[in-house]
């Protein structure tokens, strides 16, 4: 029993979150596990840890206790020492771990990781933080997963990743496929599956990730039965696939938002009125129809529609109102200065977004021009702030505050920040320090500020849309975006 899954690219790093592209994340999620992880409702659950950690009264020391009898794919036991070694690796600046920043910032700063016993490990913080566990569970950081010692020490790095997940890698052929088999010694949790948490059981013997960069090829492969699951389809194919017998298309709302970033500190978009005009000029409903075949929710709020705070906090956004846009343009004194929309063709959705936004902007008299780069170039422009507006999506998080954290702040610190309003930054800091139950008013405040400043365009909350063959059982799209291939079987 073998499950064949399309994967958009090579696994570019053996290290968890060594890079953050989807081609790397999708297989890694099957292989690696962290101390803690997400439940579907956005709360943190233990994974390798037996339970959530105990926190010292001063809030500086978090102590995790590992579950018993855990082993890595290479047969070595999972011990507190493994956790220490892994984290020393992550925190060592020389290793350039992508997520090191999250644990070495003003918000969270880990100053030490120590093994208390073979199963107990303690994390020491520089100052108390409410978000340590949230950051640790981040999906884009691959749950800060624990690796076998051979992965992090010694010069001779193994050629295959060694984690603790329900599947282990047996072969990697760059450009072709990654083969995983059931990890026989996997010790599942007893709770039922919830998000990435709970019971994981490998129901297939083998998973083959077939590397297919081209959506048209993925589509063809699925139709021909050469693959079983295409976990994030190109939405242009959604309609045709949905009407194909033997193939199921399903969709789940995720906390991701479709956005365009504005350069607010130089160029034409310094003008607040112009930014608002742009926000009023686009028809979000039309974009959702045309770009996602309806697999998204039109929204102008920075709070994703999937969030529990959406209904209460995300009021008073931007509607489609060309008249208002025109009025705002006049107010802004706009005289046809060119507005560049930077986008790329590596991700068709981003390109098409650019085309549509350009169409709407031109329709209200804004001299919008598309600048199409390759993604790496665009990325560099994003990092240096060299653009007027740019199609740009953020890696989603169950905690919207973590996303705000990424784009809010001073450009002097980091040129890629968008929302430079100090008040916004203050609110975000406060948000990250506030328990979930009390966050609602802060979100509402942020949203209000956002509508005034309009530092970006949000046009929809995304969904993850998968297509798979009918013989796949137990698989579904879910808000966590990355496909969960445990508890999935093929007929």
């Amino acid at each position, binding site marked *: 029993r073998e499950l064949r899954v399309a994967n958009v690219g090579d696994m570019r790093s053996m290290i968890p979150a060594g890079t953050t592209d989807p081609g790397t994340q999708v297989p890694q999620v099957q292989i690696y596990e962290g101390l803690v992880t997400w439940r579907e409702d956005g709360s943190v659950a233990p994974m390798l840890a037996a339970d959530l950690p105990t926190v010292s009264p001063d809030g500086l020391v978090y102590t995790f206790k590992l579950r018993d009898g855990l082993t890595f794919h290479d047969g070595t036991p999972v011990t507190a020492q493994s956790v220490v070694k892994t984290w020393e690796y992550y925190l060592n600046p020389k290793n*350039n771990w992508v997520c090191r920043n999250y644990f070495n910032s003003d918000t969270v700063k880990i100053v030490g990781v120590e093994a208390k016993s073979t199963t107990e490990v303690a994390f020491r913080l520089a100052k108390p933080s409410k978000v340590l566990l949230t950051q640790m569970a981040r999906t884009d950081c691959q749950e800060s997963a624990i690796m076998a010692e051979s992965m992090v020490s010694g010069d001779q790095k193994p050629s295959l990743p060694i984690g603790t997940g329900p599947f282990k890698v047996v072969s990697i052929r760059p450009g072709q496929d990654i083969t995983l088999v059931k990890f026989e010694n996997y010790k599942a949790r007893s709770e039922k599956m919830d998000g990435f948490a709970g019971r994981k059981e490998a129901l297939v013997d083998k998973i083959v990730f*077939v590397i297919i*960069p081209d959506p048209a090829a993925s589509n*063809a492969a699925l*139709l021909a039965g050469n693959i079983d699951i295409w976990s994030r389809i190109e939405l242009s194919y959604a309609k045709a696939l949905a009407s194909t017998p033997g193939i199921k298309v399903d969709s789940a709302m995720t906390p991701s938002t479709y956005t365009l970033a504005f350069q607010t500190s130089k160029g034409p978009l310094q003008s607040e009125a112009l930014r608002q005009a742009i926000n009023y000029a686009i028809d979000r409903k039309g974009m959702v129809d045309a770009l996602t075949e309806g697999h998204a929710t039109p929204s102008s709020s920075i709070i994703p529609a999937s969030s529990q705070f959406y209904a209460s906090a995300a009021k008073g956004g931007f509607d489609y109102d060309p008249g208002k846009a025109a009025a705002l343009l006049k107010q802004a004194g706009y005289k046809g200065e060119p507005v560049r929309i930077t986008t790329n063709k590596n991700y068709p959705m981003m390109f098409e977004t650019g085309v549509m936004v350009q169409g709407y902007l031109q329709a209200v008299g804004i001299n919008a021009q598309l600048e199409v780069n390759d*993604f790496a170039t*665009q990325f560099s422009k994003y990092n240096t702030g060299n653009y007027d507006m740019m199609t740009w999506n953020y890696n989603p998080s169950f905690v919207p505050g973590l996303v705000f954290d990424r784009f809010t702040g001073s450009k002097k610190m980091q040129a890629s920040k968008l929302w430079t309003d100090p008040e916004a930054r203050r609110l975000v800091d406060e948000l990250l320090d506030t328990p979930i139950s009390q966050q609602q008013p802060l979100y509402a405040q942020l949203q209000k500020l956002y509508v005034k400043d309009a530092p970006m365009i949000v046009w929809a909350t995304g969904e993850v849309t998968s297509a798979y063959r009918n013989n796949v059982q137990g698989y579904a799209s879910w808000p966590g975006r990355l496909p969960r291939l445990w508890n999935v079987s093929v007929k």
Partner: protein
Amino acid sequence: MIGFVIKRILGAIPTVLLVSITVFLLIRSIPGDPAEIMLGEAADPASIAAFRAELGLDKPLPVQFVLWAKHVLHGDLGQSIFLNQPVASLVWQRLLLSASIILIAVGIATVIAVAAGLFAAWQQDKLGDIAVVTVATFGLSLPSFWIGLLLLLVFGIKFGWLPVVGYVSFSDDPSRAWQYLVLPVATLVIVEVGVLTRMARASAVEVLRLEYITHARAKGLSEFAVLFRHALPNAFAPTLTMVGLVIGTLLGGIAVVETVFTLPGLGRLIVEAIYARDYPVVQGCLLVIAIAYVLVNLVVDLLYPIFDPRIALE
């Protein structure tokens, strides 16, 4: 001849060197670098800078180039930044696949083109000629991604005769390997056969007027023998130049076909490496392509005298 080969290979050194330097400068002049890409959207400038230093990208370009060249001279193409493999073995595997597809496809295309071109020239301005020219023109008008996809839809999905994705190399399972190559090869054949046919036709038209063709007819040879035994070798020489050019272009340009058919070939490797700014891989690939290109030219030059013995190797 051995002297000629050696001279040509030595003469190619400037080309290869120039390609290497240009690639080196060009790829680094394009915005975006591997550190940024590796670290992703959330990275802060300091860690990007640190990563750059680790990759040696902070050194002045000439120093970087000399370091790289020094390693290459020792047979070390470096390590891919993103793929967990040494560049040399990566490039070599990919080259084998791409080269075999290109050679098979261009070989078939050449055979078809020469036959069709000869036939068209023989039928000059008659129905057969018009048919060949029209078909060849249609082949020229369609992009490879479109033809490839159509073939996939028809033979992979509608009839289900051939697998749509994946690849099995000849060394793994020769009996299945060909299945994965049929469609990509067919796509390339369709795309390339047009221009080759027209080239072959043009030179065949000239050749068919020559006196020795009349003489061959005077011997009582059938038109088939006249065309294929007497006209072909002479008409083939100019087409050979084009064949060399096509192979050269495809070496770097086969990415589209490899992407459509998800083959792990050199073209895709380059494109992906360029997008990922995987400098060592890009440089390695280009080095190999430049050398391969030089070899292709050499082979073409060595083949010339076979088709036209008057041409002397110089």
